[in-house]
């Protein structure tokens, strides 16, 4: 792993995104002897997966799967990783892709930083921790999270009070307040776009009034509440720290809804909600848990059994789309929903004290503006062929994981491997053609 590179560095392949898809693609390429550059926008690789508590349908610990992958990539001799770096544009000419990168300043010299965290302990400025979805606090200079890679401190200039304490305590003089953004262009033969997803905002549907209650939360917030090393170390509702007694999951809260412009199914929400409901019933054995759904889409291997297990565990499933959520005085939330399987009294008022809006996936990055890659109508990267499912419209640029459309971790890893295979086949064929002349 080497973060000090310049434009003379010419990797065989460049991977956009250091989440589970990007890391899997990079490892599969690097293991074939190809030089790979991984470009990650955040300060640590690991993507969304490193922030999850457990994965479905096996309930394996997400960190225990992601951390070894992160570590393997970071220590691989053929893999170079640039964090805090964005792809600004890709210009393709004569089969070579010129990738324009913007390295954002971290105000810490990574060659000098030894990850001792003395700066973090000394810093007296805190802000809501983005890794914990805004719950808990993090210092203005800090290693992004416990198992972040690289284990280097990063200074957040927006929240820094420029008091200079970190520079004074740093044993290796790694703090550089005068760092500037740095642009460089990397020439490479193949690119894999693994730029991942965002969850749709919980305020996207005004009828759900998420801006009026702290107890209407995103599923990623619940992941952090459920994680053993999460912000509170236990499940408490954010507004007042009460142990929730009645929790609602609202399915299709940010997808399959043309009124908010996301008509497609996000594919993972049913399963992650069922998983979260199961974990919640373990964490809060006395809580009532209800999942409001339109259809349960448990399509993968072992998924239907997982759904049946959840029902057997006593999790309530109510078929009906939640139309409106009203915050009530006293902190409870009133859900307006028709139980479409109930003949008598289908629209009784339902009260809960914590509501999770199962938001769907939307694209994390729009490459169509500045690269030869095209996007489909849904905003995800367009693929061109059923027989080459990771090929984009641009030769030599491939796509993997949720950049191509909503999918779960199992499918993402399989697709990342496929993208790496197609990319290496492309690269070796190109080399063979060059030899033949």
């Amino acid at each position, binding site marked *: 792993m080497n973060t000090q590179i310049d434009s003379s560095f010419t990797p065989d392949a460049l991977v956009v995104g250091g989440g589970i898809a990007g890391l899997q693609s990079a490892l599969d390429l690097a293991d074939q002897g190809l030089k790979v550059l991984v470009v990650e926008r955040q300060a640590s690789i690991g993507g969304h997966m490193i922030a999850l508590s457990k994965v479905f349908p096996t309930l394996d610990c997400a960190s225990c799967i992601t951390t070894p992958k992160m570590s393997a990539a970071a220590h691989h001799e053929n893999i170079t990783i640039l964090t805090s770096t964005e792809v600004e544009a890709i210009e393709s000419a004569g089969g070579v892709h010129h990738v324009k990168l913007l390295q954002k300043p971290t105000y810490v010299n990574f060659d000098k930083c030894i990850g001792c965290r003395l700066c973090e302990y000394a810093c007296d400025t805190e802000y809501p921790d983005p890794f914990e979805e805004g719950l808990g606090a993090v210092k203005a200079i800090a290693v992004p999270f416990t198992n972040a890679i690289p284990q280097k401190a990063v200074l957040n200039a927006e929240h820094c009070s420029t008091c200079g304490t970190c520079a004074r305590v740093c044993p290796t003089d790694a703090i550089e307040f005068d760092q500037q953004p740095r642009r460089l262009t990397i020439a490479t033969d193949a690119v894999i776009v693994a730029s991942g997803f965002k969850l749709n905002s919980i305020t996207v549907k005004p009828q759900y009034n998420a801006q009026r209650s702290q107890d209407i939360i995103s599923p990623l917030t619940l992941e952090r509440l459920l994680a053993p090393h999460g912000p509170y170390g236990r499940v408490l509702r954010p507004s007042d720290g009460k142990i929730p007694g009645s929790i609602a999951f609202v399915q299709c809260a940010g997808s399959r809804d043309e009124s908010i412009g996301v008509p497609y199914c996000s594919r993972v929400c049913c399963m992650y909600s069922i998983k979260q409901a199961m974990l919640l019933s373990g964490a809060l054995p006395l809580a009532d848990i209800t999942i409001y759904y339109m259809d349960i889409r448990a399509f993968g291997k072992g998924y239907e059994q997982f759904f049946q297990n959840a029902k057997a565990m006593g999790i309530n499933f109510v078929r009906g*789309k939640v139309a409106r959520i009203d915050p009530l005085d006293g902190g409870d939330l009133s859900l*307006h929903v028709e139980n*479409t399987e109930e003949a*008598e009294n289908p*629209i009784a008022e339902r009260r809960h004290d914590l509501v999770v809006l199962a938001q769907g996936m939307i694209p994390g990055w729009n490459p169509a503006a500045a690269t030869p890659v095209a996007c489909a109508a849904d905003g995800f990267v367009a693929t061109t062929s059923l027989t080459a499912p990771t090929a984009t419209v641009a030769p030599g640029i491939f796509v993997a994981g949720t950049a191509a459309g909503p999918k779960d971790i199992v499918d993402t890893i399989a697709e990342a491997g496929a993208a790496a295979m197609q990319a290496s086949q492309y690269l070796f064929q190109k080399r063979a053609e060059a030899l033949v002349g």
Partner: protein
Amino acid sequence: MARVVNTSLLSNIKRHGKGSALDVSACFNCGNCTAVCPLAEETAGFPRRVIRMAQVGMEPELLASEELWRCYACGECTRTCPRQADPAEFMAAARSYAISRYDFTGLAGLVNRSIFGNLLVFAVFSLVFELLLSAKMNPAGPQAPLFRFLPGWWIHDVGVGLFAVVGLSAAFGMISMFARFRAERVHHGSAPPLAALPGAVVSGVLDALLHTRFRQCDAAEQAAAPPTEPLVLRPWFVHVSVMGGFLAMLLATTLDYLLKPIGSPAPPWYPMRLLGAAGGLVCLYGLTVMLLRRIRAKEVPWRKSAFADWFFPSLLAATVLTGLATETAVYLPLGRIGHTIFFVHVVLAMDLIAMLPLTKFAHVLYRTLALVLYSWRRAPVAVTAADAEA
């Protein structure tokens, strides 16, 4: 009892709506519309159930459901529908379909399904009234009073005949709806007792006159989406203007006939004349707002308009306009022009009444009856001796 499924029910309803623009087959029955509806109550869910009935061809249930007429088309369901299946428009189309099915003459189907049919029926009715009225027309001079030109007693006689025929047709339609409702309730073993019917009639008619539920609809809408519209533009107020104005004109005309000799001159400040003129203006205000909203076609319930949506308010507006012009003509030496305006007004008014059970005007029958049935349905079910033993 065997249930008959009408497999073409949905396509028939679509023909009463805006055709392919009505995409209710996209509905996957998530229940959002029912949950968001300000009028849905614990025991009665619509629009989803009504849409389901149409999707699976449950025609008897659909035509027996008074829920159709309890919807005032606020459009909240359409605004929030995840499939953009337009439940509000579906409800409107289903009401139009119900008007066609309750009408035993078959003319309503013609009127509501096609522009041509609508105009044909209108033209035939207009011709009939023209011929009937012309039969007793006096070839008086241009300065003759209106009622010398067209004898008042003859208008009265034709009018009474018309009311009798239309009344009969309306009664058949309402009985048809009532019978379906009752049969469906009996089928489900939840028929309300007949003894509770008179009370239900009172509360249903009061609801229709006072717009109790219409206002409830409005209150929820205003709470959900500020900024609030001024009162005079809110749908229920606009509707009250049209309905109140119309009732005032009806009352004025009736009292005019009862209290003073037909065609006798009266000063402009004669109370009945003032009531009629005021009613006409108020009614015209409401109709103007309604029609302008359809022309602008911006907000949800007025975004899509079928020909039938234009026809009834336009016919009513034309009748009121010619009526007001006639009132003016009485006091002005307009000669032949005055005679023509008067004649056109009488023909249009008769068209309006004749087409009552066929056009959207029929909602005065069926919505009122639906509110009665709704009130009746909520009456406690009588427990029979057999039930008690079981």
